């Protein structure tokens, strides 16, 4: 279990306990956090679960797999701290993770 904080573009903060094994995307979708559309359902095929990860967490996350960077090319305003939240699996080590959700996806 990890506490994940999602900052949405309406300046709201959502801190949620997300079970280990779920992805950061699933944590958002299951808790109705706006801005994570996840159109493709976690298949790394759409870039609509794009988030900006707080800088200090970047190195602590599982590395990007092949294809994630390609898909981020398609994301709305990608930055150096961009990740697809469907590719971040939650574990105890991610307790306290903070992500910003872009103002829109696509």
């Amino acid at each position, binding site marked *: 279990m990890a506490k994940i904080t999602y900052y949405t573009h309406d300046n709201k903060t959502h801190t949620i306990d997300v079970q280990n094994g779920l992805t950061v995307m699933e944590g958002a979708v299951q808790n109705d956090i706006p801005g994570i559309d996840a*159109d493709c359902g976690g298949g790394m095929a759409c870039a609509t679960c794009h988030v900006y990860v707080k800088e200090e967490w970047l190195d602590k996350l599982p590395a990007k797999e092949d294809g994630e960077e*390609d898909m981020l090319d398609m994301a709305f305003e990608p930055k150096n701290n961009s990740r697809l939240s469907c590719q971040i699996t939650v574990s105890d080590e991610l307790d306290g993770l903070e992500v910003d959700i872009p103002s829109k996806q696509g």
Partner: protein
Amino acid sequence: MNKTDVLIIGAGPTGLFCAHQLGIIGLSCEIVDNLDKAGGQCIELYPDKPIYDIPAVPECTGEELTNNLLKQIKPFNVKFHLNERVEELKKNQNRWHVKTSGGVEFDVAAIVIAGGVGSFEPRKFSVKECEKFEGNSLFYSIKDKSIFKDKTISIFGGGDSALDWAIELSNNSKVNLIHRRDGFSGAEASVQKVKELNDQGKLNLFTKYQMDSVSGDKQIESVKIKHDEGEIKEIKSDYVLGFFGLIMQLGPILDWGLNINKKTVEVNTENFETNVQGIFAIGDICSYPGKLKLILSGFHEGALAARGCFKYAKPDEKLRFEFTTTSKAAQERLGIKK
């Protein structure tokens, strides 16, 4: 005006199988899709990726699944209207009048929405001013490449479309290719070619840059691009092209008076009809308690929706339940010769 029993919106696996089920029970249908080919997400997002959960098919790709479905509905000669998006919907007594983006009109008894997560639209620039130039000097696809001759064109993106067009247009135009990182998702051979052209001065490659702003009066005159580290360059451009793939959007369906919940259409599970009589929704686009977004669920939903359409298409007839194995009528419709 195309007159048919049922209009299916969306040519993904669910829409295709629904066409089969309509054919089996003797109803005609036509299919509209915004993409240029049938198959929906299966063909657009994962043509080569394997699918393992189609009943009785241990493994197939999105493309194979699509081709098999097309083969399965071949006997019914279903008419496809591709590159068309359904725009308008009007009730006319007991029938529906439907109009597409390209002006194709339909007169149908029932409508089945099998629109997946929405219609595929090009992903656009996030810079607001881009809207102003869209269609005159800023494009997301190319219809007539002759307009670019001897002009300066700034192409954004790192996939195959961006690379292929950069190479192609560099023959007769001055091309700038701008991409947000050093890596590209397009084919390696194209990446090499682009780098070669850049070295030979036949194309200008800018990596780790993204669009910052566009300016011009009626037409684009220049575009500013911003490096990862903050440096801004202004480059003269007559045209700007963006190739960022496709995104799915619900579009005009939102305006049809349907009960929409989280980008999905609410239906009953008896025949997958929506809150509007004669309009059904199946596949990823429909929601009901227990909904699973699986292709197999879409097939089931399509079979029931097809039967739900029957009473609108043939109000004076009664639908009999039959098996294709033994039904003479169904086999005739399938063109089976004994």
